[in-house]
């Protein structure tokens, strides 16, 4: 009886071992490419927000909103003087966490918002990341696009000063909340910057 169990266990272990070895090979083969993809996307978005910046220095910031987590923050500099700050922030949305990159300039206005990750319903909430889905068809403004140039002191309330994505109020509110939290943190960073130097 024990012998039979041991035999079954060994066979199962053998299959699992071979599967693990196969997975390890594929993991090593694709690891660098996956990391490069994520890094490339972040880099492109940073350059897109601060086209004039020469370097992006990591900075640590605290999120003012417990529901929104800051994954990273980068100070955009040109010739040693800061141009603004970009915050990579994540928060819960309709289909899991969404990750945004929020850029704020020295004039206390949003430079822009880029959607890095969004797992919401394709055709509805996922339109937040679509470059051809407009919240304002006449002006051709996308949902993240409408934040560009907005002062961080505004209310950030969906259906008031923020236009919602059609039939996706939850996504719109969730993303706006992330933008607001990042804007608030950038505001206090700017105050420290002005006071400290």
């Amino acid at each position, binding site marked *: 009886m024990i012998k039979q169990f041991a*035999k*079954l266990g060994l*066979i*199962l272990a053998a*299959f*699992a071992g071979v*599967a*693990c070895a*196969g*997975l390890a090979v*594929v*993991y090593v083969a*694709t690891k660098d*490419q*996956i990391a490069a*993809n994520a890094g490339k*996307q972040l880099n492109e978005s940073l350059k897109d927000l601060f086209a004039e910046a020469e370097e992006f220095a990591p900075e640590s910031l605290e999120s003012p909103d417990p529901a929104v987590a800051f994954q990273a923050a980068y100070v955009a500099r040109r010739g040693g003087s800061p141009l603004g700050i970009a915050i990579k922030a994540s928060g819960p949305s309709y*289909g*899991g966490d969404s990750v945004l990159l929020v850029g704020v300039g020295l004039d206390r206005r949003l430079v822009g918002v880029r959607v890095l*990750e969004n*797992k919401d*319903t*394709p*055709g*509805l909430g*996922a339109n937040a990341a679509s470059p*051809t889905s407009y919240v304002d068809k006449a002006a051709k403004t996308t949902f993240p696009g409408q934040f560009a140039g907005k002062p961080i002191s505004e209310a950030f309330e969906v259906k008031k000063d923020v236009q919602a994505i*059609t*039939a996706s109020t939850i996504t719109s509110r969730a993303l706006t909340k992330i933008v607001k939290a990042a804007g608030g943190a950038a505001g206090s960073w700017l105050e420290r910057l002005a006071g400290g130097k």
Partner: protein
Amino acid sequence: MKRLWNIFKQGIIFENPLLMLMIGLCSALAVTTSVSNAVGMGVAMTFVMLCSEIMISAFRKVIPNSVRIPIFIVIIAAFTTIIDYVMQAYFPELSKSMGVFIPLIVVNCIIMGRVEAFAYKQKVPDAIVDSLGMGLGYTWVMVGIAALRELLGNGTLAGTQVMPASFQPILFFTMSPGGFLVFALFISFNIWLKGRMAKAQAAKAGAAQEDAA
């Protein structure tokens, strides 16, 4: 050859996993909102099914009956994770839009069902043909449903605008109830098609009998 062709044919219409066996529907309804997602899901499913069926059919004599389910899951999970990594590395956009549904292939009943009912009992060539037939049967239905839903619900096809600008997208088709409706239309179509084909076959057999008489 004829035997293999018959196995292949089964998956496409007569035993179509989605329309006749009606298994694996959850992810099928969830990702059919755009054609590119449907193609990605179809290819990923076919790949995992093909590899798993080959492995299980090849090793069917050494897999003990009492631990076959855990071994199936280990094999299917390994191939699913492989395709997940490959998609993340080389098709990051597609991988992002498919989200959680690629890892969920592990517990997709189509693969589990075919492995248990077919590959574990049949030779390797039969298993290969079965997995390709089932994979193609799955993919054409996915792409068909997705094309209709994307066209009506978003006015686009595989991401390009095809409807005139004046067309107001019918959001209903993008959401789950629309998915069920389109899916039901496909089931009715398949049943009608199957009925016609069976009738044609019966008529042919009848004619042959008369000739003989």
